[in-house]
């Protein structure tokens, strides 16, 4: 017998699919119960569309945590599509994801991803492990392979704090992905994705200090983003006149994942810009 018959109570009672025990994954449930809501499920037709692209994201570890920072620019060809786009997202208490690539698809992926994490946590009563979270993102990325072939690629950068790590000082983790969903643990302690990533990574290679404290890590991230913006037109530097500053999310054991307030970001960014007035190379 059916658990209930929605025929008699149109639009109100919970449909049978909702009452069927099954996966704790929101994506899996959505795919079976409401496939029309799944992002990117339709087959792509020939031809290409022009869509806004997000650009540079950097991640680096420090003593006691990890941080993720991104510039705010989205570009479409040679145009700036958006000046103040948010590309770094807190996905749960101890993780954050930064996105580069086709903005619309990436935003939808992150939204679904954070619901996925929350859904699992609510149903199971415990959080996913750090590796579980990282693998889930790989699976979602793999789901967009068709889109990537059609030119709508997305490249996330995952940062998380491993609450089960032996050494809380070294519990910050960075996970990188390739476009086919390949997942790689970044052991070097820093990474960057997006169009300006080459320059950001070169800057971080010189600056990164695994024993740095939170403040100098934030400073290093903003410096790296400045370097990326310096040499890559698609990356936006701190825009002091419009008050648009890089967005930074820090993840530590006691605080969890928190976004740096606008004032703090402003003071770091202004500091960096002022210093560069004297020494343009940093």
């Amino acid at each position, binding site marked *: *017998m059916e658990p*209930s018959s929605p025929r008699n*109570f149109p639009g*109100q*009672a919970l449909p049978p699919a909702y009452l069927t025990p099954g996966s704790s994954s929101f994506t899996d449930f959505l795919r079976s119960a409401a496939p029309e809501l799944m992002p990117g499920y339709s087959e792509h037709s020939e031809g290409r569309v022009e869509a806004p692209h997000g650009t540079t994201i950097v991640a680096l570890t420090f003593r006691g945590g990890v941080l993720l920072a991104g510039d705010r620019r989205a570009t479409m060809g040679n145009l700036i599509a958006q000046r103040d786009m948010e590309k770094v997202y807190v996905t749960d208490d101890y993780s954050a994801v930064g996105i580069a690539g086709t903005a619309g698809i990436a935003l939808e992926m992150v939204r679904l991803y954070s619901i996925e994490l929350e859904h699992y946590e609510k149903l199971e*009563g415990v959080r996913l492990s750090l590796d579980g979270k990282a693998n889930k993102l790989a699976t979602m990325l793999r789901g967009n392979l068709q889109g990537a072939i059609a030119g709508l690629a997305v490249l996330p950068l995952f940062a998380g704090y491993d609450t089960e790590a032996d050494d809380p000082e070294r519990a910050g983790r960075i996970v990188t992905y390739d476009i086919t969903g390949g997942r790689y643990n970044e052991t070097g302690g820093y990474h960057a994705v997006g169009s300006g990533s080459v320059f950001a990574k070169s800057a971080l290679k010189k600056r990164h200090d695994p024993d740095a404290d939170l403040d100098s890590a934030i400073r290093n991230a903003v410096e790296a983003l400045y370097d990326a913006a310096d040499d890559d037109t698609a990356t936006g530097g701190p825009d002091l006149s419009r008050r648009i500053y890089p967005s930074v999310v820090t993840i530590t054991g006691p605080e969890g*994942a928190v976004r740096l307030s606008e004032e703090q970001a402003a003071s770091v960014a202004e500091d960096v810009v002022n210093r560069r007035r004297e020494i343009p190379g940093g």
Partner: protein
Amino acid sequence: MTMPFYTSPEQLMRERSELARKGIARGRSVVVLKYAGGVLFVAENPSTTLHKISEIYDRIGFAAVGRYSEFENLRMAGIRMADVKGYSYDRRDVTGRALANAYAQTLGAIFTEQVKPFEVEICVGEVGSTAEFDQLYRLTYDGSIVDEPQYVVMGGQAETITTALKQSFTEGLELRDAIATAIRALSSDGESSRELGVGQLEVAVLERSRPHRTFRRISGAALRELLPGSGESGSGEQSASAPGGDESGAGGDVAQGDR
């Protein structure tokens, strides 16, 4: 030729009600009440993993008594419904009222159509922007829905506890007093000498002041500090709200991004 047994609908309903009522009364009780900072859930539950109280969504909590497998099923369905709705529209569009309605319809359908009704009683609590908008919905096995103004008592010796709570409850209690009131009522069932300690209690709140996900479990040391007779040091709330100490969200400003 065999004739099916005829049972009058009236008798059928009565028998089903009786079955459900008996099942619900066998378990231990849950008290849900409004307090100054939001909604408080207190359950007598020795298990630390099989919860009677749960988070559904940002501002919505769930408490249930009766048969675990059945209310667990409803809890899961509620979380799915809330998450699907929040994903397809916006987080603000998920309301306790819609959820309570869906539960009522589902329980009603099961009660009339199935051989055995669900032996459960549910409370859906929602914390609003001000105390005036806090909601408590009580849902019974037959799909009845009641909007309770102050508190909900379910399961076990519900009537005795309700009587006790009626005398001691006042509006706008602080968390510490609200917990004390709830525990005093819970321990007054039958032999009034029972003492409920941290090990027998499951406590959670929907806290108005928390951003994003308002649900927070209070357990262990944080709960011990809030229990009656623990002194008025009052730092319990602080220690419990650090991420990792409970199951609730700390930041989660993805929602701000798509709001």
